[in-house]
């Protein structure tokens, strides 16, 4: 997207936020503004959640929860960060909570969770079927949840460390170290499992 298009989009987004935050806006206008915001971000948020939970149905549920929370808490958005960073943050928190609940519910250890996610990945029809991609995903699934989250945002979504820092509330230095460590682990896995 060009810089001009980005600026126009940012201005429009700001207008929708104002409409949502203004108590005098009627319900129809509010719904339209919310729908525009949702349409703008839902694909990126979906992709973000999907890479973390793997399962398509769980992703749909979490995406729904995320936007319900956006609607409910839009008054608390202070415009100190970009809206998509704020939505990413909500989605990330929802996803991490979901994974934690799942582990507790089934009493799973980290490696067992990874194995379960790998099985889901292999049977997923929407997974881009190349072998190397599958092995890469398997390698990523061996990482702890937060490290996986950082790696996905940096590697696949190509976010800046500063943006990731806002989302996961961690210093840039710590994120760099985390990403470096994740890369090393993934490369070691690939070396071992891919000829």
């Amino acid at each position, binding site marked *: 997207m060009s810089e001009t298009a980005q600026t126009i989009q940012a201005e429009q987004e700001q207008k929708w936020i104002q409409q949502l935050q203004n108590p005098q806006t009627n319900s129809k206008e509010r*719904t339209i503004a919310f*729908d525009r915001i*949702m*349409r703008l971000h*839902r*694909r990126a948020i*979906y*992709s973000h959640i*999907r*890479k973390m939970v793997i399962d*398509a149905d769980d992703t*749909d549920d979490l*995406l*729904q929860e995320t*936007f*319900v929370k956006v*609607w409910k808490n839009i008054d608390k958005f202070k415009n100190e960060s970009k809206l998509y960073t704020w939505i990413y943050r909500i989605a990330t928190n929802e996803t991490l909570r979901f994974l934690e609940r799942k582990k507790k519910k089934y009493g799973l250890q980290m490696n067992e969770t990874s194995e379960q996610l790998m099985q889901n990945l292999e049977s*997923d029809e*929407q*997974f*881009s079927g190349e072998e*190397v*991609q599958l092995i*890469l*995903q398997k390698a990523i699934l061996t990482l702890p949840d937060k490290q996986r989250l950082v790696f996905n945002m940096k*590697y*696949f979504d190509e976010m800046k460390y500063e943006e990731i820092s806002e989302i996961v509330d961690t210093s840039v230095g710590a994120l760099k170290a985390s990403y470096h460590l994740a*890369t090393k682990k*993934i*490369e070691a896995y*690939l*070396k071992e499992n*891919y000829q």
Partner: protein
Amino acid sequence: MKLEDIQKKQPFKMPDEAHFDTISSKIYTQLEKEENQKFDKKTNSVSIDSAKTKRVAFWVKPQFMGIAATLFLLLVTLVGIYKYNSDTNSSTTLATSTNQTQQLDFSKIPTEQINNFLLDEDISENELVSFIPQNSSLESNSIFEQSDLNSIDAESLDLMLEEEYL
């Protein structure tokens, strides 16, 4: 193998717009449902509150009943204490008055009546002395004079004693 050697691409195919629209409609349904629940809750709480206000008068409320019961108990206790005090005072007065009635004025009793009483009853001299109240004029009575040993002269007394030991 390095990460750079792998072609970077999103691992999952993105669902079509219709799929996202379905999720959007689910979101609106959920929001509407929650709004309705919130509204129902508010309505219920308002109706319950008004029903409570209508039905329960303040004197039936437990707080008021508790305070009333405490005050009643306090009142009963105070009345009890007051009654006990006044009873004690009256019984003291009664006892005092009874004591006063027991102090008989023998001067007002005719001498003949006392004489008859003393003669009829088997009373020893000691008992008689203890029986006679102070300030009594009984000592001056004739019956006492007759039995008074002080009035017997020494000779007669010796004779009496001799006769006794014989």
